C-alpha cells in the first residue's frame, strides 16, 4: 500500500460513516476471533428446566428449545458466521478472477464465450444462483460456501473484466507486449496490481452480501446443519418458536443485520472515499469561499435607461446576483446597469467567470431559487421581474422572451420529439390545441430554414445535427412573438461554418421583426459581426460599455487586452498571440479596489484602494477605470485596431 492509498484510507476513517463502519467491523471481527472459547460452554449448556424461557436477568434473550442461552449462542456463532462468509467471499473473488481474466488469457474467441456466459449469469439474482448451486453441491456448510461463492462470482468476473479493460489499454501494457512479455506474466506483473485496490473494496462489500446470503441459506435450512450453528441456523430454529420466545429469532437476526450493515457500510464508504461511487455526488456548486466583503460599488450616476422612451425592451439597474455558499454568499454579478432598446443588438463579453452568463440568466429570470437577485430596477417590456412569479408574468416571458443556449446538444430534452418541445410553448401560453400547436412548430422550423420541417418535427433531438438543433432552439423562441432574444454563447459549441449560419439567422430575425438581442459571448470576433454595442464585464461588473465599431479605441485596459487576444487574418504568425497575464478573478474573493488591478498594466495606488464607478466618458463610452483613456502606442500589442474604425495613432496620443 503506497502512501497515497494510506492517505485515502485515513480519509475514509475520518468520515463519520466510515469510522462507525470500521469500528463495527472491528468489533465483529474481534468477536469472531475470541467468540467461541469463553462462550461455547454456556452456549451449549442444556437446561431442561428452563426451555424456551423469555428474556430474563439470567438469560437476556431467553433460551431455546433445549434451554440454551440465546445471547451466548449468538455470540458464539459469530466465528462460524463470519468465517463462512469470508470463505464464500474468497471463493467468489477467486472464481471471479478466473472468469474475469479468461478473456485476457484465452484470446478473443474463447474470451468472448466466457464474457457471454458471465453476462447471462449476471442477469440472474444471486440467491437464485445460490439455490441452484446449493442443489448441486448438496445441503450443508461446505455446499453453501461454494454456492454463495459461485453465485457471487459473475459480479466479480464482470468487475475484473471492466477494470482490466481500463488498465489494459494503458501504455505500459502495450510496452510490455511489444517487449514480448507473455500475457500471463503481464497479467500478474502489470494488470492485477493495478486493479487490486477496487477489487479489495468490492470484496468488502461482497463480504457483507455473502454474510447476508449465508444467513439466508442457513435460515432456509440449506446451510449450516445442526448441531453446528451460525446466525442463520439460529434464526431457522427461532422462527418456529416465535410466539413462545421471539428473542430466539430476533437476537440472531439483529446480529446478522449489524454485521452485514457494518461490512456494507465500510465497503460503501471506502468506495466513496476512493472516488468510486458515482451515485452520491456533492452538488458541484461554485467554489465556497469566504464572503466577499467588497463594498457595493457606488451606484452608476447615470442610468442607461435615462432616455426611457417606450423604446426600451430591457432596463436593468444595479443588478446583483448572489449565491449562498458554505462560507458566506458569493456574488458573481455585482451591480450591473444597462438597457436594451427595441431592435438593438447588445453583446456582453468577458472571460469565463466574469458573470456574463449569470447576468443573462438573471434578466431572463432563470436563476435558480437558491440564488438571490437584487436590483434597483429590472424591467422587461415594462414588467417588473423582481415581483414574485405569477401566471401572467410566466405567460409574458414565455412568449416575449426567447432563450438560446450554448450547447444545442444538451439543451433539448432527449426523450421528446422536437416538434412537441416547440409546440409546448404555444400549448401553455397561447392556448393552442395539440394540432394547431404542432402546425405552428412546423411553421417556425421552416422559418429558421430547416428543410422538410414536417418530418423533422417528428424526429428526436439526436437525429438533428448541431447546427439544426441550434436553429430549432431559435425556432422554439419564435413560437411566441419575442421582443428580446437572449443568446448565451449560441455558437461556441458549433463548428465555424455553422456558426456563421446561426449568426446570420439571428441577424435576419432581428432585422425582420425588430427584435432586440442580448448576445453573451467570449468571442469578440463574433460580437463585432452581429452587435451594435458591447458591454465588457469583468468580475461581475461592467467595466466598459461602447459601440462595437469603437472596440479599437477602447478606454479600459481590459477591453484593449480582450480585443488584442483575438487572432485575426493579419495577426503576425511569427509572434505568439498576446494573452492577458494573470488569472480571472475568483468571484468569491473580490478585492476592495478595482478587480482588474492585479492584472492591469496601468495599476496605481488608487486602483487598489477604490473601485472605479462606471461613468460616461466624453467619447460616449461608459467606462469604469481611474485611468480611462484611449490606447497608447506602447500598449497596443502591435495590434492595429480592427474594423477600420480605429483612430490613427496621432489622435491616440493627444489624450
Amino acid at each position, binding site marked *: 500500500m503506497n502512501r497515497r492509498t494510506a492517505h485515502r484510507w485515513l480519509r475514509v476513517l475520518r468520515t463519520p460513516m466510515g469510522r462507525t463502519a470500521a469500528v463495527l467491523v472491528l468489533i465483529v471481527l474481534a468477536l469472531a476471533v475470541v467468540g467461541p472459547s469463553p462462550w461455547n460452554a454456556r452456549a451449549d449448556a442444556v437446561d431442561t428446566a428452563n426451555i424456551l424461557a423469555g428474556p430474563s436477568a439470567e438469560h437476556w434473550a431467553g433460551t431455546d428449545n433445549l434451554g440454551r442461552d440465546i445471547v451466548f449462542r449468538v455470540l458464539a456463532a459469530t466465528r462460524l458466521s463470519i468465517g463462512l462468509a469470508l470463505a464464500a467471499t474468497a471463493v467468489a473473488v477467486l472464481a471471479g478472477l478466473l472468469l474475469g481474466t479468461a478473456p485476457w488469457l484465452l484470446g478473443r474467441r474463447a474470451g468472448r464465450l466466457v464474457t457471454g456466459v458471465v453476462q447471462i449469469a449476471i442477469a440472474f439474482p444471486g440467491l437464485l444462483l445460490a439455490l441452484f448451486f446449493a442443489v448441486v453441491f448438496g445441503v450443508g456448510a461446505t455446499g453453501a460456501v461454494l454456492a454463495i461463492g459461485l453465485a457471487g462470482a459473475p459480479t466479480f468476473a464482470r468487475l475484473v473484466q471492466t477494470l482490466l479493460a481500463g488498465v489494459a489499454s494503458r501504455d505500459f501494457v502495450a510496452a510490455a507486449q511489444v517487449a514480448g512479455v507473455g500475457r500471463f506474466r503481464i497479467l500478474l506483473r502489470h494488470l492485477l496490481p493495478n486493479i487490486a485496490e477496487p477489487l479489495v473494496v468490492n470484496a468488502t462489500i461482497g463480504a457483507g452480501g455473502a454474510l447476508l446470503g449465508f444467513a439466508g441459506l442457513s435460515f*432456509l435450512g440449506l446451510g449450516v446443519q445442526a448441531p453446528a450453528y451460525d446466525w442463520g441456523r439460529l434464526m431457522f430454529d427461532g422462527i418456529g418458536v*416465535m410466539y413462545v420466545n421471539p428473542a430466539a429469532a430476533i437476537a440472531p437476526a439483529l446480529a446478522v443485520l449489524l454485521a452485514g450493515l457494518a461490512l456494507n*457500510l465500510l465497503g460503501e464508504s471506502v468506495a466513496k472515499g476512493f472516488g468510486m461511487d458515482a451515485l452520491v455526488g456533492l452538488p458541484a456548486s461554485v467554489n465556497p469561499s469566504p464572503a466577499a466583503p467588497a463594498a457595493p460599488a457606488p451606484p452608476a450616476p447615470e442610468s442607461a435607461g435615462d432616455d426611457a422612451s417606450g423604446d426600451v425592451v430591457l432596463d436593468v439597474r444595479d443588478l446583483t446576483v448572489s449565491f449562498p455558499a458554505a462560507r458566506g454568499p458569493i456574488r458573481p454579478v455585482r451591480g450591473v446597469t444597462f438597457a436594451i432598446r427595441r431592435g438593438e443588438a447588445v453583446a456582453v463579453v468577458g472571460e469565463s467567470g466574469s458573470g456574463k452568463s449569470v447576468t443573462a440568466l438573471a434578466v431572463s429570470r432563470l436563476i435558480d431559487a437558491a440564488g438571490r437577485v437584487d436590483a434597483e430596477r429590472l424591467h422587461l417590456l415594462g414588467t417588473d421581474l423582481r415581483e414574485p412569479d405569477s401566471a401572467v408574468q410566466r405567460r409574458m416571458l414565455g412568449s416575449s422572451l426567447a432563450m438560446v443556449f450554448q450547447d444545442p446538444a444538451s439543451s433539448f430534452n432527449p426523450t421528446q420529439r422536437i416538434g412537441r418541445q416547440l409546440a409546448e410553448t404555444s400549448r401553455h401560453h397561447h392556448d393552442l390545441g395539440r394540432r394547431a400547436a404542432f402546425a405552428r412548430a412546423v411553421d417556425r422550423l421552416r422559418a429558421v430554414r430547416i428543410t422538410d420541417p414536417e418530418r423533422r418535427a417528428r424526429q428526436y433531438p439526436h437525429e438533428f445535427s448541431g447546427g439544426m438543433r441550434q436553429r430549432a432552439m431559435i425556432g422554439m423562441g419564435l413560437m411566441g412573438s419575442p421582443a428580446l432574444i437572449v443568446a448565451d454563447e449560441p455558437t461556441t459549441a458549433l463548428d465555424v461554418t455553422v456558426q456563421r449560419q446561426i449568426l446570420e439567422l439571428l441577424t435576419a430575425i432581428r432585422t425582420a421583426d425588430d427584435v432586440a438581442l442580448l448576445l453573451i459571448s467570449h468571442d469578440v470576433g463574433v460580437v463585432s459581426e452581429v452587435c451594435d454595442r458591447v458591454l465588457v464585464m469583468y468580475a461581475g461588473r461592467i467595466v466598459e460599455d461602447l459601440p462595437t465599431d469603437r472596440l479599437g479605441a477602447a478606454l479600459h485596459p481590459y477591453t484593449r487586452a480582450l480585443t488584442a487576444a483575438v487572432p485575426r487574418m493579419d495577426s503576425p504568425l511569427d509572434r505568439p498571440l498576446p494573452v492577458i497575464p494573470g488569472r480571472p478573478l475568483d468571484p468569491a474573493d473580490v478585492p476592495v479596489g478595482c478587480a482588474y488591478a492585479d492584472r492591469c498594466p496601468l495599476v496605481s495606488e488608487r486602483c487598489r484602494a477604490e473601485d472605479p464607478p462606471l461613468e460616461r466618458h466624453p467619447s460616449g463610452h461608459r467606462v469604469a477605470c481611474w485611468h480611462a483613456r484611449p490606447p497608447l502606442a506602447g500598449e497596443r500589442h502591435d495590434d492595429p485596431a480592427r474594423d477600420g474604425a480605429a483612430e490613427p495613432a496621432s489622435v491616440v496620443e493627444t489624450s
Partner: protein
Amino acid sequence: MTAAPAPAAASEPLLVRRIAGHPWARFALRRAGRLLVSLWVLVTASFLMIHLVPGDPVRAALGPTAPAALVAERRTALGLDDPLPVQYLDYLRNLLGGDLGTSIISRLPVSEVVAQRLPSTLALAGLAFLTAVVIAVPVGVVVGVLTRRGHGRRTEAAFTSGSIVLGTIPDFLLGVGLVYLLGVTLQWLPVAGDATPAGYVLPVLSLAVGPAAILARILRVEMVAVLDADYLRTARAKRLPARSLYLGHALPNAATASLTLGGLILGSMVAGTVLVENVFAWPGLGTTIVRSILSKDYPLVQAIVLVYGLGVLLINTVVDVALALLDPRSKIRED
C-alpha cells in the same frame, strides 16, 4: 453520430432491407437473440443440475433403505439410464410439450404442482413490486425536487442515510422483525399464509421496503442530475408550470436511468420471494423449492428453478423494451 438513420435510401427498394435496416427492427432482433441464448443456457443448466449432483440422485431422494428395484424403476421412469444426449433431447421435447416431469417423492406431475403454487408467488411478487414503485416514485421525485442543486442539504443527508439503512436490511430479516413487531407483539396482522387479504400485508412490506428505498434513492439522484441539465433550463425558459417541468420533462429522463436498476431490483425480488415465503409460510413456489431441495426431489427443483429463471429473463426483456421506448437513443446507442 448525429446523422439521422438514412431513410432516404431511395436506391433501396427492397422492403426486407428497409425493415432490417430500421433501428427498431435491429433492436428487436438483437434483443430476441439475447433472450433465446439466455433461455437456452437456463434450460441447459436446469437439465444439467440433476447430473451434476454427486452420486445417484434417485438413491439420494429415496434414502439408503429404499429397495434397489424401486430405485431402478424410478431411474428408468426418469430416463436417467439413457445416454446423456438422448436425455437432453427428451428433456427439451418434454419442456416444449409442457411436461415438466414427475415428482420423485409425491409422484404428482410437476407441472401440476407448479401451476398450483405459482399464483401465490406471482401475487406476492407483483404486489411487492407495485408497492415499491408506488412508494419510490413520488418519494424520489419530491425529494429530488426538494434537494435539487443548492437546496435542502439537510433533507438530502437525512434521506440518503435513511434510505441506505432501509435499503440494506435484507427482506427476510425485515420479515422476521415485522412478524415480531406487528404479528407477535401487537398482534395486528396475521403472520402466516395468504388466506386473508391482511395476510398479504407483512410479506408484501418485507419484500417492498428495501427495493423502494433503493429505487427512491436512485431516482432522487437522477432527478437532481436531470433538474440541473441544460434541457431543463430550456424547459424553464419556456416558463412551463412546475407539474409540466417535473413530471413531463424531468421524470421521463430520470426514469430511463432508474429503470435499468428497477429491472434488477424486480429480478432480485423474484428470488427474494423464496426467503420471504419461508418466513411467512407462504403457499408459493418458494416454500416448495426449499422443501424439495431438502427432500432431494430433483425434478421439482429443476422445474421451479426454470420458472424463476424464466421470470427473471422476462423481466429483463420487458425492462429493455421499456427503456428503448422511453429513451429513443438507447436502441441506437447499443450498436
